[in-house]
């Protein structure tokens, strides 16, 4: 009896020891994995962290080391950077960016949805050729059309205005978004739309009341992409906008480099931080929908 219970006890202790060892191994492997992830992640993020840190440094300190913690933090860069070397404050440039982004994003969302809906759901003459040309535009390098576009907009008298920057996009000029929405729509079942038709909705009502709500995540992605790309667009404003009072932030940042002889790096860095802030905020707010949107292409309804 005693022997048996002893054997049992020792077997149990063996089991417990094995379990404890497994738990320890698991913990160690987790620690190592996370340490590695944090290290690589930190390395990747370091330039951004440094940017934020350096924007609070004085000019002389910026180049004295690679550390990101300012020794004597100052907001001087922000204050002076905001004033800029022009008669306008940086707020003006943000406002300009906003005036481009707002119609562009709204226009893109509306026009691309309508075009994509037509391509995905209706049969019309030359549909294949037209969709082929959308894809062709998608594959065309942007530079190729720069000069003809410039001449076109010059003849329209649109130079030095915001129009060339947002009108083409607001008329579904961005083939990428059309294509993305078409693909998303193709993955949605048509039953709901048919039910709506039986319920008496016309095509536009079906689109607005049934399709658009289902298209939500994809539309968030479209708006987000358009927002970020427009915010970061440098070449477009550079080509079409010549008056300083119409500069968007991307050009204004460059402006602060050009016009001063000795670069005030802390101002540039401070304004860079401000410039990326809206994009970051919007991205984190919309992140959930955004990921749903780009991953939902392969989803079955």
């Amino acid at each position: 009896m005693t022997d048996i219970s002893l054997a049992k006890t020792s077997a149990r202790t063996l089991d417990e020891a094995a379990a404890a060892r497994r738990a320890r191994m698991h913990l160690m492997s987790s620690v190592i994995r996370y340490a590695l992830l944090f290290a690589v992640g930190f390395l990747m993020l370091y330039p951004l962290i440094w940017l934020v840190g350096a924007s609070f440094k004085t000019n002389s300190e910026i180049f004295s080391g690679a550390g990101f913690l300012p020794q004597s933090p100052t907001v001087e860069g922000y204050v002076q950077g905001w004033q800029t070397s022009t008669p306008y404050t940086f707020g003006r440039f943000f406002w300009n960016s906003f005036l481009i982004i707002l119609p562009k994003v709204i226009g893109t969302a509306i026009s691309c949805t309508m075009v994509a809906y037509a391509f995905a759901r209706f049969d019309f003459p030359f549909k294949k050729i037209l969709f082929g040309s959308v894809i062709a535009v998608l594959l065309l390098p942007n530079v190729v059309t720069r000069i003809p576009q410039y001449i076109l907009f010059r003849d329209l008298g649109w130079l030095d205005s915001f129009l060339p920057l947002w009108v083409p996009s607001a008329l579904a000029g961005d083939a990428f978004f059309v294509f993305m929405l078409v693909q998303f729509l193709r993955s949605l079942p048509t039953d709901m739309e048919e039910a709506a038709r039986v319920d008496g909705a016309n095509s536009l009502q079906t689109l607005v009341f049934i399709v658009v709500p289902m298209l939500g995540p994809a539309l968030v992605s479209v708006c987000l992409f358009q927002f970020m790309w427009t915010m970061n667009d440098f070449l477009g404003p550079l080509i079409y906008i010549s008056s300083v009072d119409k500069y968007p932030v991307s050009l204004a940042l460059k402006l602060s480099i050009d016009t001063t002889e000795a670069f005030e790096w802390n101002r540039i860095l401070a304004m860079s931080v401000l410039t990326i802030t809206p994009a970051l905020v919007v991205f984190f707010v919309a992140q959930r929908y955004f990921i749903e949107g780009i991953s939902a292409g392969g989803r079955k309804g």
Partner: protein
Amino acid sequence: MAYVQLKNLEKVYNNTNKVVHGLSLDIKDGEFMVFVGPSGCAKSTTLRMIAGLEEITAGDIIIGDQRVNDLSPSKRQIAMVFQNYALYPHMKVRGNLSFGLRIAGRPKAEIEAAVEKVAAILEIEPLLDRLPKQLSGGQAQRVALGRALIKNPGVFLFDEPLSNLDAKLRASMRVRITDLHRQLKAEGNSPTVVYVTHDQTEAMTMGDRICVMQAGRIMQVATPKELYNAPANLFVAGFIGTPEMNLVEGAMEGGDFVVGSQRLAMGSDLSGRLSSQPADAVLGIRPQQFSLVAQGPALEAKLVHAEFMGHEVYMHADCEGRRLVSVVGAAEFEARGQSDVIRLRPDPKTLHVFDKSDGRNVSLHGGSIAA
């Protein structure tokens, strides 16, 4: 409230692929018509053409005295229930039910009243403020039904509405739908129903009449009883009934049916019904119409396998290389003795003879068939 008439209806896809071949069918006002057939027989396509969701290549559709070929679905006095419910995922049940009325711009009070009424009929009041994703299959199906009901249409179109439900729920929904139809009829507005299914149990239990289809053609339109007792052709004979009707290939020789080395006397009852005596014939015998006999005219077969179903036994037997299925009472099965060789006598009153060349039932002539 509305009869439905199909005249030489045709559907051709891509100019080459003809899927519906000149269908003509009259569905009476207030009738429950079931389209049944194997998958790919174009029953859903036909329904969608009636709904206006699919264009018609040729022919006419008439609903309640009006040719509706070119009318949009919403102007055809129809409502449709879809196979996978097709509820609007972002609207609550209330919104789903009222969508059609809201689009039509009806006054708010009227919409509210209609929603309440339909919800009460279908017992979905507690679900009104839920989203479709919070509903079970049966609940979603009832909401889909409600969305059709609220429009008070002349014609209800059902596209395999129960095929996504489990067996038990399907049985109860089946009763619910037929009850609802009866109830509406009793209230004076008798909506016509066109119901598509591939499930013959649904077809047999629900339909006033059944339209059996195959490959875009109508095989037979008849009441469930008539389809079962007097199938017009081989296809209907094989499609309706469980277990399937035994279709034994053989030949007619001087009033006898010859299968392999066996000869089965037809008897005067059957031969009186024959409109012709095809040389190559197929004998149709329902499994339930066999009886085990010790002597007399019968088919001799070797018992291969017996399935005990409780009060009856399904016997699978081999007769001249052909599989025969027969259903006999458990007691009769036990009394047959130990031998593997069984003698099966078909009831001559319910025998069918089909012409093998065109599949026609040639035994429907003149005399009536016992029910």
